[in-house]
């Protein structure tokens, strides 16, 4: 649960917009992630989730708006802002031609992690990768690659963690362990997480708050445990389907 709503946010997004020619991919999005909070970002395909994450990661320039990570303006001081951040995404596998340990070492140096060797050992153990340390990442199963991505994401003990479908390709048992691990990491109030997923069970189980994105806009926001009932849905999955259908109808009438 969030450590304190009055604490300074680890992520502050204000009036964020991104247009690709005539397409408004993200449209005036404003939200914050507090320390110790896991914020779910959900929505149908094309809703603008990954575009939003790419802007927070500094690999996509917003058309308008402002992003601050722990009070550091991303546009003004990109390197310092991103040093407090890390991410894992299924569409960004680590280089397959480096071994597990080599990947962690290279990215540990990029994030200038102190006592890197011991941090790598710790993460290999946490993510059950010790036996694969000398295996090239490209030879790992998709689940093992996901665990490696998460280990990389934890290297610098980020204050803001961006997870795009972090448990995709992982079996339910491992996914549960990983969710528990991330929740424990966040529980110390040190880190805030922005979590995207299409797995509503996972969002409900893990997230303190959820934002529904549709056509680049936030259309719903609230506690994933109470939000379905408040909108007359049986569960978060049904609510998601209802929102997605509305978005589809709206898209057709545009």
């Amino acid at each position, binding site marked *: 649960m969030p450590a304190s709503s009055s604490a300074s946010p680890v992520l502050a997004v204000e009036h964020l917009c991104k247009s*690709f020619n005539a397409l408004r991919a993200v449209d005036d999005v404003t939200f914050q992630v507090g320390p110790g909070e896991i914020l779910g970002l959900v929505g149908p395909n094309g809703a603008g989730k*990954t*575009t939003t994450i*790419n802007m927070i*990661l*500094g*690999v*996509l*320039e917003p058309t308008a708006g402002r992003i601050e990570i722990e009070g550091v303006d991303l546009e003004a001081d*990109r*390197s*310092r802002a*991103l*040093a407090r*951040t890390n*991410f894992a*995404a299924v*569409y*960004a596998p*680590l*280089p*397959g*031609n*480096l*071994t597990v340990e*080599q990947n962690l*070492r*290279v*990215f540990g*140096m*990029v*994030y*200038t992690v102190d006592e890197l060797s011991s941090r790598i050992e710790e993460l290999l153990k946490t993510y059950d990768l010790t036996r694969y340390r000398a295996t*090239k990442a490209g030879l790992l199963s998709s689940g093992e690659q996901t665990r490696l991505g998460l280990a990389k994401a934890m290297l610098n003990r980020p204050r803001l963690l961006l997870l795009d479908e972090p448990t995709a390709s992982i079996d339910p048992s491992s996914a549960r362990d990983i969710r528990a691990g991330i929740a424990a990491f966040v529980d110390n109030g040190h880190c805030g997480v922005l979590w995207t997923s299409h797995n509503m069970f996972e969002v409900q189980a893990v997230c303190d708050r959820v934002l529904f994105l549709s056509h680049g806009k936030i259309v719903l926001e609230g506690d994933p445990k109470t939000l379905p009932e408040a909108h007359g849905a049986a569960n978060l999955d049904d609510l998601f389907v209802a929102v997605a259908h509305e978005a589809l109808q709206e898209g057709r009438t545009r």
Partner: protein
Amino acid sequence: MNLTRVAAIVLRQFFLMRGSPARVFPLFAWVAIDIVLWGFITRYLNSIAHAGFDFIPALLGAVLLWDFLTRVMQGVTLAFFEDVWSRNFLNFFATPLRISEYLAGLVVTSIATSLLGLLVMLALAEIAFGLSFFAYGIAIAPFVFVLFLSGIALGVFGSALVLRLGPASEWLIWPIPTFVSPFAGVFYPVSVLPLWMQAVSKILPPSYVFEGMRAVVSGEPPPWGALVIGAVLAAIYLALACATFAGVYRHAIRTGLIARYSAETVS
């Protein structure tokens, strides 16, 4: 500039080479073949030409220096292509890594790989054909330095092109030294070229190096003034190449190209 991050880029290349003989072999194999081939050609030319002119320093020396420039350029572009081929841009550029640190890492990698190639070429040229660059002493250093700057500039510019145009444009990059060589007067004096080609030569730093080298092997003093012009031109091109890369990178950030970089998505 954070040196640990620069070292990370270099270390990545070291890891790749350590685990892959296919990456190490070309560092010295092709240059060695060039030296052997041109070594025998020059030996043959010496045997049929009039006494008094030694083709070995004139031709073999030119091959050696031109191969060095090519190796420097390829050192940068190959290190860059490793990130293209493994689609690693999102992983690197969504980190605190600055573009200057990334480029510095590519350049340091190129220094290491091209020096390895240069040492092999120097050793082979001396042992097999009696061409000793060490005989020229420290005077050779400015020539190598200008070629080094030129190779880095070509490598950074080539990488910028591939970042802008996509991986499919890779084939545009490899022939760049071949396009430059006729104008650079690698094997002949620039004065034999038509006037329009001579005009192009004047803006190419390697042409000052090869003209200078020919003067030195003919027993004349090194043309320091011309070398300074070559060095200044090379520094300008390097600055322009880095600015081009930074401009292309900013374009890629504005359009989202970095996050979805592939042959199909580049436009």
